[in-house]
């Protein structure tokens, strides 16, 4: 088994990559603008749907049920698809999927294929495999085309070229399409794309697609899109190959009634996207006469063993969590080093690879919960992020070097200190002494060594001379000396006293600095 997710194995850790992205003010402006537009649109159309919460719940419940019986539903899908004239192939990992697809393409003597947006093909690095085999993949989704022509990487699940603004896209088109002139309006760009690809749509005989849903009870496949490039790839070629992650299966045709409401509203903020295509096997006299489905595992089955991890596979790839995420909105998608960016990428990429790569991603979050709130299938992303952070730490600690590294030792000590009052009090005294050289005006500035991470972007409040525990002890002593007071008055005194104590702490801190 060699699970691979895009180029994650060689990508730099998130904080390093994010540092670079944050320096690029044009990129930050583009990402900010695009995500603001889409969040506002999404907000409006979600507001319109009075039963939104019920739809989310149903979307979640259907996926949860499906994944609990994934083997059964996949076999149902396979049987029905093949009965309708399709051929189903199975791939354990990226290499196996690539080799199945290449084998099929060689059999059809392909030199070119037209592709409709498939994240899964990016996951397995299909384009590189095709190019190595001298087969030209032609991306037909506008954003994917921008990425391909500009030799760039996708930065968003739904809008891969979200980090490019109109002027930058125009430059790429002028340069790569061999145009003499091109207007500056958005429609000038879409017209250019229409003209550029029309010839290929009419001529190329093999299409390659992903799938939004594989329908078990009919054996059908559903692709959701906007531009019509999907319909072109799904309809005009004689051969169609569809790459489907095994988690994309849904039990019934009827279930589309839920997802065809939640997906478009979440993805592009539309009540419905312009086109949804559903086809089942081969249809005589209509569309491709050779149809292959490649069902891909590539690490997905590893997430089935745990109730929480399994939720990751509920994802319908709408991208709403990216747009809602305060971290993604600052850094854009490239910093995640994976074709799956944002909060969903932060839980999906490391898990697909059994936590071997993308290990910094579960930390790329402030755990604010915005992703969970907008998720149309209610994936508890914040809880999963914490769960995966735990996994990263436990894997690290499982080696001797890991167990002896300073952070790990410090955390073990902290864990003991929080369990014992005497150790805690002693540690506090020690810290009060240790902080002395770094305290200025009651605040701790930049710290050296492994503590540096805490103070890199903000100052910390110094540990006060007088802790609450100390104050409480003194207060109780004083109260007992004065012979005790009624409960009501005592409470008032205590709150007055704590205000005084708080203000004296500030003064002390200040005088200390």
């Amino acid at each position: 088994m060699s699970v691979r997710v895009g180029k994650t194995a060689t990508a730099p850790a998130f904080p390093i990559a994010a540092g670079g992205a944050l320096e690029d003010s044009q990129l930050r402006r583009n990402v900010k603008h695009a995500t603001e537009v889409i969040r506002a649109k999404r907000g409006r159309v979600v507001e319109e749907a009075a039963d939104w919460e019920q739809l989310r719940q149903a979307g979640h419940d259907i996926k949860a049920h499906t994944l609990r019986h994934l083997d059964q539903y996949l076999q149902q899908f396979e049987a029905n698809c093949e009965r309708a004239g399709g051929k189903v192939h199975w791939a354990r990992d990226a290499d196996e999927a690539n080799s199945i697809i290449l084998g099929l393409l060689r059999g059809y003597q392909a030199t070119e294929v037209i592709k409709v947006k498939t994240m899964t093909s990016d996951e397995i690095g299909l384009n590189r495999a095709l190019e190595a085999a001298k087969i030209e993949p032609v991306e037909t989704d506008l954003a994917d085309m921008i990425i391909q022509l500009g030799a760039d990487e996708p930065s968003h699940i739904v809008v891969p070229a979200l980090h490019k603004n109109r002027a930058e896209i125009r430059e790429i088109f002028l340069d790569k399409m061999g145009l003499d002139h091109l207007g500056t309006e958005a429609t000038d760009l879409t017209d250019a794309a229409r003209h550029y690809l029309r010839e290929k749509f009419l001529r190329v005989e093999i299409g390659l697609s992903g799938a939004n849903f594989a329908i078990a009870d009919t054996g059908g496949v559903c692709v959701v899109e906007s531009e019509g490039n999907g319909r072109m790839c799904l309809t005009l070629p004689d051969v169609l190959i569809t790459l489907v992650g095994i988690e994309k299966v849904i039990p019934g045709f009827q279930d589309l009634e839920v997802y065809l409401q939640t997906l478009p509203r979440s993805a592009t903020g539309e009540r419905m996207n312009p086109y949804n295509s559903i086809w089942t096997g081969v249809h005589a006299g209509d569309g491709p006469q050779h149809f292959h489905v490649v069902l891909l595992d590539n690490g997905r089955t590893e997430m089935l063993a745990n109730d929480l991890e399994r939720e990751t596979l509920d994802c319908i790839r709408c991208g709403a969590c990216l747009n809602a995420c305060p971290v993604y909105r600052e850094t854009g998608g490239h910093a995640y080093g994976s074709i799956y960016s944002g909060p969903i990428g932060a839980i999906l990429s490391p898990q697909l690879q059994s936590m071997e790569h993308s290990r910094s991603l579960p930390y790329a979050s402030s755990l604010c919960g915005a992703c969970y709130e907008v998720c149309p299938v209610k994936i508890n992303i914040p809880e999963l992020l914490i769960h995966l952070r735990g996994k990263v730490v436990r894997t690290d600690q499982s080696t001797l070097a890991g167990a002896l590294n300073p952070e790990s030792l410090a955390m073990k000590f902290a864990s003991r200190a929080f369990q014992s009052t005497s150790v805690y009090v002693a540690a506090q005294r020690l810290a009060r002494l240790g902080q002395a050289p770094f305290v200025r005006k009651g605040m701790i500035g930049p710290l050296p060594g492994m503590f540096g991470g805490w103070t890199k972007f903000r100052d910390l409040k110094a540990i006060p001379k007088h802790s609450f525990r100390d104050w409480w002890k003194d207060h109780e002593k004083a109260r007992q000396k004065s012979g005790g007071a009624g409960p009501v008055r005592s409470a008032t005194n205590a709150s007055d006293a704590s205000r005084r104590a708080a203000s004296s702490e500030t003064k002390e801190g200040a005088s200390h600095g």
Partner: protein
Amino acid sequence: MADSTSARAAVLAQIRKRLTESSIPASTDAELAAEYQRIPRSYSRGAAADADHLLHLFTERLVDYDAEVVRATSDGVAQAIAGLLAAASERRAMVPEGFPSEWLPQGVEILRDQDANGEQLGHEALDGIKTVITTVSAGIAQTGTIILEHSAGQGRRALTLVPDRHICVVRTSQVVESVPEGVERIRAQATQPITFISGPSATSDIEMTRIRGVHGPRFLGVVLVEQA
């Protein structure tokens, strides 16, 4: 090529193994069906909205996503279509087999999906056709969607894709309020090719703004005919 048979067995075995680790037993077909039936679906299936409201909503939502809507009486369909063609200075149109002949406009050259040898038109020939006129299977008011199942009167999928203008006739009795009702309408034909169309081709890929017109038809005209 990789050995797909062993891959199939391996993936299925791995799924079963991991699910068993999570204490999820394999179930019989009957148990599976029963569990599926128990999934709560408390979302709206569409209320019995009054007909006027429904058609008003359908029209408003179609127009909101750049479709052009014309209302017609049952004997005014041909004229309404003629009006849409005239507005585009179009004198020819592709019409699939099974489209009601009484709806065909006068003075317009009707093209068929057939070449001199009686074969379907090739892609290049189809690309030379500007307008196609079809019926539909259902309309969804809330989302401004029309559904094709590519049966008689609707043509194979390419016919409503390659030409730049798509004019379709929707009978008022075909319009439902919600997506669940729309899906229900086509459920019996679920294994036919199906296309949901909501407005003309568009993209949101440039600065997240819906821009009309990329590869599919850039004009969608809907004739809404008051007829059962």
